[in-house]
């Protein structure tokens, strides 16, 4: 009954390889977007989801071309339309919010001006009407006091506010269809939840159809009525959101949902082996064959067709979907983590504070840092040998800063970092001896940046081996091979360059390089956040395995609370460079919690339509930690008054050994958190 506003028919898009072969990025895609509907397109990087979304507004990226099929909007094919006609549709009828749209606002123009430009371009409003419309739009995206916001520059807004402005600009032309490419990726957990909630509201309020493109099933679950799952350029599953998340009848989706860590489950999720085939390397048969747990002989040589199942209103591309239909309550099993915790403390961080403040001349001469309100302050953590301790908090909470100081990359302003209960590690890298440097190794967030693009895998792993152990020749080669084996990569990877590896493989090489130094402590800075979910679980499992083998201690920084839950023994929650709560994982994830931990836990997006995020506090961002009192006072919904503003809250310790730093007594804290 509902009207279809966008009809994609047998769409194939591809490019010509250097050898002249036609390589398909999208293979025969057909789907309809109905009026007022929100559709989520999920898939890992390289599955073609962005290409599909762009095609829906008649845009094919440079270098690609349409091989066949059409995208019909208002009964005309966008892909055949002239640019002049497309311009009338784009922005007015179909609007798009590209990835990182908030950050892409023009930095030197005021917000109001930028929205006005969008209105001039995409609407026929007159000048007086536009002014009115600007505040209306800013109101609609729930920005506080639109009049003042309109006069600000983008850098004067927080990430979430910038994203809201991008949404307001997209709504300027009152589009019928809104395409959103990774609308919340890169935003903080708390901000994500707020932005999605706003988009949900707008969809209901205006009746705009929305198409979300994301790799994040958690985000998609919160907003979409219908989900399209893409795998290597094809639709493999399409149906009502709830069914797909609760009863995925395609093995890929099934595996994907199982590999996502959940807040409610401690322990590592099962990983999905392998990776998506690159375009152009597709064999005959089902493209998921290599990774499928349900495959049969016939899947190898026959490609399954997309089959529409009337009773479920679902389309699926799999010969075996029936066997999944009966038991596909994604009953997740997790590998319980074994703790190899020893009683010996390996790293004592006491009273550490770190400042980014510019030193003035006098300070430079006296070689001191004077800043009475440093970025990070009063950090006290004692880490046991073999433990995995996680630092969590929003962006800017000082997690990476603390890691850098432990590694010696950033001088501390004060405090002591003691190794093995005997040696104080000098705060300056230059003063540390080679062994001090060897015992602490780092793994970074983005393996694209942490591996030198001009070195082969062999050269990358050889570096620490040569530096610390002086290995050469055959011995060196042997060690490299062993390390590759440890991270489950074959010998033939030695001669590859990073650009020839997938994201997960690159991260494995980075892990091998860290372990090459035989370190006692490994600092992991967001090591899985640049990876696809299906790969993330594999890397987490690998890290856990290696830790059990070598007895390594991990300090694990992440903004993803579910991942932290899966891997860590203990969690430290940071806000504005100050500790709020430190305790064993299972207690931190239970109430009573510090009010900030409660906010973080509430905002987690789970791939389950029944678990909605709870939005406790505003998603405002503070520039600087407060001078005195509790660090969280600016956003705390339970603030007591002057005591919170003036006095640093005391540490309160629960029976299970969880420390919470708040003025509210534990009993009372818990009372309001139960429900």
């Amino acid at each position, binding site marked *: 009954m509902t009207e279809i506003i966008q009809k994609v028919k047998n769409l194939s898009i591809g490019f010509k390889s250097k050898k002249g072969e036609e390589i398909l990025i999208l293979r025969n895609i057909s789907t309809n977007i109905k009026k007022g509907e929100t559709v989520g397109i999920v898939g890992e990087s390289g599955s073609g989801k962005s290409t599909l979304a762009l095609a829906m507004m008649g845009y094919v990226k440079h270098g690609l071309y349409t091989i066949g099929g059409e995208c019909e909007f208002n009964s005309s094919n966008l892909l055949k339309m002239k640019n002049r006609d497309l311009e009338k549709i784009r922005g007015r009828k179909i609007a798009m919010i590209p990835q990182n749209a908030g950050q892409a606002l023009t930095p030197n123009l005021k917000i109001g001006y930028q929205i006005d430009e969008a209105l001039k371009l995409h609407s026929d409003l007159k000048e007086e009407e536009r002014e009115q419309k600007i505040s209306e739009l800013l109101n609609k995206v729930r920005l506080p006091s639109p009049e003042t916001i309109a006069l600000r520059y983008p850098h004067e807004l927080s990430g979430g506010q910038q994203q809201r402005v991008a949404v307001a600009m997209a709504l300027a032309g009152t589009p019928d269809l809104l395409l959103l490419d990774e609308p919340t990726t890169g935003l903080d957990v708390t901000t994500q939840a707020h932005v999605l909630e706003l988009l949900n509201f707008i969809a209901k309020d205006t009746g705009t159809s929305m198409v979300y493109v994301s790799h994040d099933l958690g985000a998609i679950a919160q907003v979409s009525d219908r989900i399209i799952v893409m795998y290597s350029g094809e639709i493999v599953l399409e149906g009502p959101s709830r069914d797909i998340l609760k009863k995925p009848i395609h093995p890929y989706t099934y595996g994907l949902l199982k590999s996502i860590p959940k807040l409610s489950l401690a322990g590592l999720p099962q990983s999905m082996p392998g990776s998506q085939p690159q375009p152009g390397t597709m064999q005959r048969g089902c493209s998921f064959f290599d990774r499928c747990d349900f495959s049969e002989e016939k899947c190898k040589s026959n490609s399954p067709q997309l089959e529409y199942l009337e009773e479920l209103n679902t389309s699926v591309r799999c010969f075996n979907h029936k066997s999944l239909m009966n038991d596909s309550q994604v009953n997740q099993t997790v590998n319980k983590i074994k703790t190899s915790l020893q009683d010996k403390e390996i790293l004592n961080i006491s009273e550490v504070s770190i400042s980014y403040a510019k030193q003035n001349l006098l300070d430079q001469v006296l070689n001191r840092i004077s800043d009475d309100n440093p970025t990070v302050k009063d950090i006290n953590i004692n880490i046991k040998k073999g433990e995995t301790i996680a630092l969590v908090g929003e962006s800017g909470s000082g997690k990476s800063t603390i890691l850098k100081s432990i590694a010696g990359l950033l001088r501390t302003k004060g405090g002591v970092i003691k190794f093995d209960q005997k040696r104080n590690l000098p705060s300056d890298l230059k003063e540390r001896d080679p062994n001090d*440097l060897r015992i602490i*190794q780092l793994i970074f967030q983005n393996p694209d*940046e942490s591996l030198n693009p*001009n070195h082969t895998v062999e050269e990358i792993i050889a570096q620490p081996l040569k530096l610390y152990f002086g290995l050469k020749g055959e011995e060196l080669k042997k060690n490299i091979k062993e390390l590759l084996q440890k991270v489950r990569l074959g010998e033939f990877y030695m001669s590859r360059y990073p650009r020839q590896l997938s994201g997960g493989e690159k991260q494995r090489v980075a892990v091998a390089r860290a372990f090459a130094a035989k370190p006692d402590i490994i600092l992991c800075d967001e090591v899985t956040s640049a990876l696809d979910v299906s790969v993330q679980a594999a890397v987490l499992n690998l890290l856990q395995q290696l830790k059990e083998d070598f007895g390594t201690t991990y300090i694990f920084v992440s903004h993803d609370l579910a991942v932290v839950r899966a891997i860590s023994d203990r969690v430290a929650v940071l806000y504005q460079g100050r500790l709020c709560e430190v305790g064993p994982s299972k207690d931190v994830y239970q109430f009573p919690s510090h009010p900030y931990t409660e906010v973080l836990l509430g905002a987690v997006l789970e791939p389950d339509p029944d678990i909605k995020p709870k939005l406790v506090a505003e998603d405002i961002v503070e520039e600087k930690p407060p001078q005195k009192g509790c660090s969280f006072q600016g956003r705390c919904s339970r603030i007591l008054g002057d005591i919170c503003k003036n006095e640093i809250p005391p540490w309160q310790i629960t029976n299970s050994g969880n420390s919470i730093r708040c003025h509210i007594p534990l009993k009372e804290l818990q009372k309001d958190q139960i429900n």
Partner: protein
Amino acid sequence: MKLDNIYQEEKKSNFTKVSEIIITMASRPSGFIGLSILIFHVILAFISPYIAPYDFKAINPTLMLQAPSAEYWFGTDDLGRDVFTRTILGGRTALTITFFGSLIALLWGGLLGIFCGLVGGKTDDIVMRIVDAFLSIPWILAMLLIVSLLGTSTEVLIPALGFFYGKGIVRVARAATHDVIAKDFIVSARARGHSNFSIIWYEIIPNVRDAILVEGAMRWSWMLLGFSSLSFLGFGVSPPTPDWGLMISNARGLMSFAYWSVIAPIVGLSSLIIGINLTADAFAKALGIDRSTKAPV
């Protein structure tokens, strides 16, 4: 989405890498033309002493300003010397001096740039101020000063040109280093405790090399123009050495009635500059670098 992942390549020897780059350069029409011109000039510079039909310094007043003929292909100049002989020999000095000049420019400019990019902070500020101050001096005045103080021998010209044309390379090398330095693999090397030398040599240079080489190639054509201007003004090589700049300068008064004595060296000089330019352009494209420096012609 990384499309080039499809083309799995194995580690290549330096020789294959260089030949691949040359093939890519030559596969573009402009690159092919540029390379051909450059190679033609280089070969000519090597063999010209052996193929030159006449003695380049033989003065013969009876043959003054002859028009081109079967005997004297490009005619003769005001002293009766064969213009063809002088033209094919005229690029030798210019090519040699500017080639070595460019190498010197690459070396000091590249290293200083990388150093500045690496240390950053105050040192970087001060060094860049000095470099900027030098950049603002009209180079030709400074060159004239140097040449008049130290003479016009090759030993003076090569380092002097190398010095002046290295300034631009400092900027490029510094910017490229800045981009690399922020990457985590450098942080990682620092955290492991590698020495500054090893970080520069092993981590930075492979990543900035291409940008610096391209800039060096560009500087070469600028330098050629500069060197010829010096000769033109009489401050380059000294007569009777055949040199395009000098030849143009000598014959420019005769333009109206003995055009041949001017045309030949002009064609020689401009074709070489264009050749180097096109080659540098193709080189940049083959390496996948967007060149922002403008060509001198």
